[in-house]
């Protein structure tokens, strides 16, 4: 029994087939990564979400949890070029975007030639991004936002797909330059890498201290990722879900003058809520989540599942919130409890 008009039947079958392929490809990618990475299911899902949604990810966790290995494994599994930049206080913007060097050719003529930096790769791992100076961070974040690099008066496009996965360590804050809120907003998701449980640790030890190392084979390529991105953006979203996302976003802001009801924690502890870019991130990530879960269109549960990653770096606590040690995730939990999908 079909509710679609007759002339769409053929395209409906195509869409069904394409979505099944999309889901299979995503699952194969996740499975491939899980051959190397033990546990960390949510982190893997977050990174894959960034790849497919076309956004960038910020991974936060203490050293040694496998953040770098995860990104490297992802690059191997998708047959894309990979570059790693270790951010240090003396790293300069030119070290990232490249610079012009004087080259002598066979005819002994000298000319300035552009030498591309490591950012010209499909997947860039910006390790410990908060260790570099704000100037250098800006160079990277500008490239992330624009998808191009300007050097020597010439603008050069970055490869497509282009994905930056930055990492930062929440413990050692001395000698670091925390990313400003405006720049944090450029990341699609802020993924927290938890410490593995006992069983996961046992599996990690078994897998990493033996002779045989797990190998990864590429399951996707750049063309396929571009096609997947296109399909993800084509997924229809019900108007009530879009409205739900908008209401969630509005509820991350304290009410102006207390005129609208807000969750108590937001009223008390939040200085600024998420920007409209946060709502875009929420909806895009929810689309990927629904495909990963085998559904055709995102619902409220998909939005809830990605809300923490998409909003936690976009909500700024006020002094009281900082002083009381309030976790942004607790605010988000309360917002999710407070806001429901409209029944009208």
């Amino acid at each position, binding site marked *: 029994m079909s*509710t679609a008009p007759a002339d769409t039947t053929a395209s409906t079958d195509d869409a069904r087939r394409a979505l099944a392929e999309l889901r299979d490809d995503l699952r194969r990618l996740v499975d491939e990564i899980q051959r190397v990475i033990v546990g960390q299911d949510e982190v893997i899902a977050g990174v894959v979400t960034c790849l497919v949604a076309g956004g960038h990810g910020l991974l936060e966790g203490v050293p040694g949890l496998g953040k770098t290995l995860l990104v490297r494994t992802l690059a191997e599994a998708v047959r894309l070029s990979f570059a790693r930049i270790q951010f240090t206080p003396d790293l300069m913007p030119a070290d990232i975007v490249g610079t012009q060097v004087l080259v002598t050719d066979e005819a002994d003529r000298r000319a300035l030639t552009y030498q591309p930096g490591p950012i010209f790769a499909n997947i860039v791992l910006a390790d410990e991004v908060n260790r570099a100076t704000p100037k250098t961070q800006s160079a990277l974040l500008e490239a992330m936002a624009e998808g191009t690099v300007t050097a020597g008066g010439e603008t050069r496009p970055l490869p497509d797909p282009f994905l930056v996965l930055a990492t930062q360590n929440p413990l050692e804050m001395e000698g670091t330059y925390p990313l400003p809120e405006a720049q944090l907003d450029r990341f699609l998701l802020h993924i927290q890498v938890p410490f593995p449980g006992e069983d996961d640790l046992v599996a990690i030890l078994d897998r990493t201290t033996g002779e045989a190392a797990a190998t990864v084979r590429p399951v996707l390529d750049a063309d396929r990722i571009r096609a997947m991105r296109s399909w993800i953006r084509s997924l*229809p979203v019900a108007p*009530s*879900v879009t409205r739900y996302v908008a209401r969630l976003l509005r509820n991350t802001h304290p009410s102006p003058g207390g005129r609208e009801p807000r969750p108590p924690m937001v009223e008390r502890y939040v200085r600024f809520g998420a920007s409209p870019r946060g709502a875009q991130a929420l909806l895009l990530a929810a689309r990927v989540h629904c495909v990963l879960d085998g559904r055709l269109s995102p619902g409220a549960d998909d939005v809830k599942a990605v809300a923490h990653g998409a909003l936690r770096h976009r909500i700024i606590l006020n002094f009281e919130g900082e002083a009381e040690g309030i976790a942004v995730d607790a605010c988000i939990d309360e917002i999710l409890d407070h806001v429901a999908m409209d*029944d009208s």
Partner: protein
Amino acid sequence: MTDLERRLRRLRRRARLVRLLRTVHGIGLPAALAVAALALAAVRAGAVSWWVLAAAALPVLAAAGWALARPLPLAAVASAVDRRFGLHDRVRIGLELARIDTDDPRRRALAALAADEAASLAASLPLHEAYPLGPGAPGWLHGAGLAALVVAALVPIGAPAETDAPAPAPHAPSRPPQVIALDLSAAGPLRDELREIARGEDEAAALASKLLALLDALERGELDRKAALADLDALARAIDAALSDLEARTEEDPALLAEGIRRMTEALDAHEAARPLAEALARGDEAAAERAAFDPAHGPEDDRALARALADAARALAEAQKARSDTGAKLAEAERRLRRARKKRPNESKEAHERRLARAKRRVEALRRQKAREDAARRRLASLRRDAARAARSRGARRPADRRTMARNAGGAARTARRYRRLSQLGRDAEDAATFIRRAPKKGSRKGRHDRRRMRFERRARGKRGKGRKGRPKSTFLVEGDVGDGPPDAILEEDGGGQDGDGDPRGDGGGTEPGDGTEPGDGIGHGSTDPLGEATHRAVSLRDEHATPREGRGATRAEVIATSSQEGFASAPYRKVYRDYHAFAQTALDGERIPEPKKRIVHRYFHLVRPR
């Protein structure tokens, strides 16, 4: 109209009916019972006629009207279906996407696909289960309404007749002297706790019932204070024996086990989906815990929520397992003392040395046993933690077995923990009861001992009954001539209200009525005119002197405690300090007029900070 819409519209009719039933049952019926109770009471008292009882139908009609008038959108019905079957909004989204209008052919095709999927889901599921018919279980409001109705039915018909008390017979036989009952009204919270414990069926419940009966007998005057304290002592010994028995039969330390189970149930209780499991564990009900741990009717969302709760419970158990105790340190110290005790002191008799050695050995043995029990309890908690973690992780066919195993093991531990907790609580309540019995004033006397003491002090402070032995109370005498610097015709009136003083009733100067007392007078008194007279205009140099009062340790108990609290109690054992504080607070509670709820808060506080 699509097929999905047609199905949802049909379901909406059922939803309206269900909502009508629930509103009438949940709101209309309790309100109707309350109105009926009021009307019945008024009718029986003769204030209104019987037809007023018909007003009880009004809340039912109002609730029904409200339920029918409220709109019920199709989206809400679709959401209810999604929630019931754990469909992640698929029906709701399909309903909306069926109406979507877009130029993008790919998006149109995907929307049609989603709408098709929703329609086929709706066709394959028993949608009526989303709105089960039936009014639902009665709640406390219904109980309250019924109780009000029963109370109203007991109101005497017409004006209550006033019956005169029968006059005592002129030669009534003399009754045997009765024990005067004690006023135990302040023990209300304690009784509540005891009633809570008495609800069970174990030995704690039986002992709690006995304790309650003892308090009741004391209050009715069937027991005197001494006998009650003796009975209470016997009960306390029985409680101690039950606790010892429990400890002897349990390999693990029950206190540590109870703490672990408490943390586990708290962690579970924080999740809506795991609340039945937490409640079953709190009751120590293994069977209910097994049922709550795996319910085949649960949807995937509930399952995931339960898995999260179990993961939290595993973490809570891990924390409880890591909680430190000072038994190890105590054991090391006791072993050091035992080594020292092996050496005989100079001038110590052989018998004294053997007694000292035996005492040290007993102490070491007891601490070793305790340490072993704590280690066993930690192993048990570790095992429970592994069970919880496995149950949280397990998927597929193994999930029911893992969860049931976890619930069974946790239920067994919870039963032991609950038994220990109830007996310990009862022991503390018995101590509280002893305090109440010792301090309770006799019934009928409005003031207790502390009140009487306070009133005696107040009387003295006001000087109403001075102790000058031979002064003349309430005497008035005139003094002619100069009294100090005052005017010559000052009249002093002495009303006997002064403190014991050094007043000289003979006056000063050539009065005609010098008074006849040779002993110190009864007070200072106050004049009916200004006894100080007018200013003398004598040249004096005035200077203000400030006296700094001495703070800190003073004569009263309150000052001593206040100072100690500022300086810290490091030098005094907590148990003693607690006793002092508790006794002081109890004195204040007994002696002052404090609202009962506030008294309860203070009792509760001291209950919580009690040394264990």
